[in-house]
């Protein structure tokens, strides 16, 4: 009987330990089409965060590929969404301070793909709309021409109801 009780107590403790609210995201490793090998690209194009709340943290790695034959320096920055998905509004002004970019100025070797961790850590007590959106912009800063290109990843955040 004592063994049974001991087992139940241990099992209970283990189960309660497993029920933490911060499971890491399942990251699908990008396997780009071969034709993208010599292009600059980012992946994913969209990250969706659900059940978010003040004090919570969500993170996801942004893959950046340098398709050029020489090293390229990129800038990885927070960007107010130019337009938003249906039902979403642009992130509150404070959101820029909640976003952490692990490597804001990575230099990638020729044909290198690198993951840069992006995290959103909303301050406790902060307020946000039910559904808000911000972008992470990636730009090859070695571009010298008048017309330059930039790639952006949408982050769609839905707050816990």
């Amino acid at each position, binding site marked *: *009987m004592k063994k*049974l*009780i001991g087992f*139940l*107590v241990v*099992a*209970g*403790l283990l189960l*309660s330990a*497993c*029920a933490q*609210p*911060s*499971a890491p*995201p*399942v990251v*699908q*490793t*990008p396997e780009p*089409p071969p*034709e*993208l090998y010599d*292009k*600059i*690209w*980012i*992946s*994913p*194009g*969209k*990250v*969706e*965060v*659900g*059940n*978010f709340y003040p004090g*919570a*943290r*969500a*993170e*996801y790695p942004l893959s950046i590929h340098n398709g050029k034959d020489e090293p390229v320096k990129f800038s990885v920055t927070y*960007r107010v969404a*130019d*337009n938003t*998905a*249906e039902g979403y509004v642009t992130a509150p002004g404070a959101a820029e301070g909640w976003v952490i970019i692990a490597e804001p100025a990575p230099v990638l070797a020729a044909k290198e793909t690198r993951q840069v961790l992006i995290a959103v850590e909303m301050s406790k007590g902060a307020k946000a709309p039910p559904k808000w959106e911000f*972008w992470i912009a990636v*730009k090859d800063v070695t*571009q010298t*021409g*008048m*017309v*330059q*290109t*930039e*790639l*952006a*990843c*949408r982050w769609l955040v839905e707050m*816990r109801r």
Partner: protein
Amino acid sequence: MKRWLIVLIALVVLLVPSTAFAATYAEVTVTATPTYIALTNSEGSWALGTIAESSHFWWTATGAAPAEPFVAGDMKSIITNTGSVNVNITVTGFDFTGVVGWALGPTVGSNIVVMKAGKTGDANEAAMVTLTTGAQGFITALPHTSGNTIKWCMKLSTGTFTDGSLKTGKVTLTASQTP
């Protein structure tokens, strides 16, 4: 009796924590599909050379004003969506720099210029996007499969200048996954 009490306590320890978490905390979820955002633009520069005040300059195939509606043959540069999903493209202008800079404006003025961006299919010049230092919608849902290119052009209108120094301007095209 004592044994049953202990069993009951053990069951409470077993069951209560997980149900409590389920009721109080829905886990933060993070999901993403491995889509690829990639974009090329064929012509990156516009070397205007020496330009006059109160004049108009076109960045088109021939340097002349395009026919209306705008057709691909008259455009200057090709944007290609080389990614794996449709993209929206916004365009952002930057004020010209160089001693006394030129600001972008809706109408020309002293050290104020007007820049516009247009694309194949635009009905006329009025349909072009007048550039500002804020991002503006330019192309919606450019496909990633067939028809993944679009040609575009620009126009610069000058005002008056207070110096003759070299000026440098910049335009950024930003691609994002079409929602």
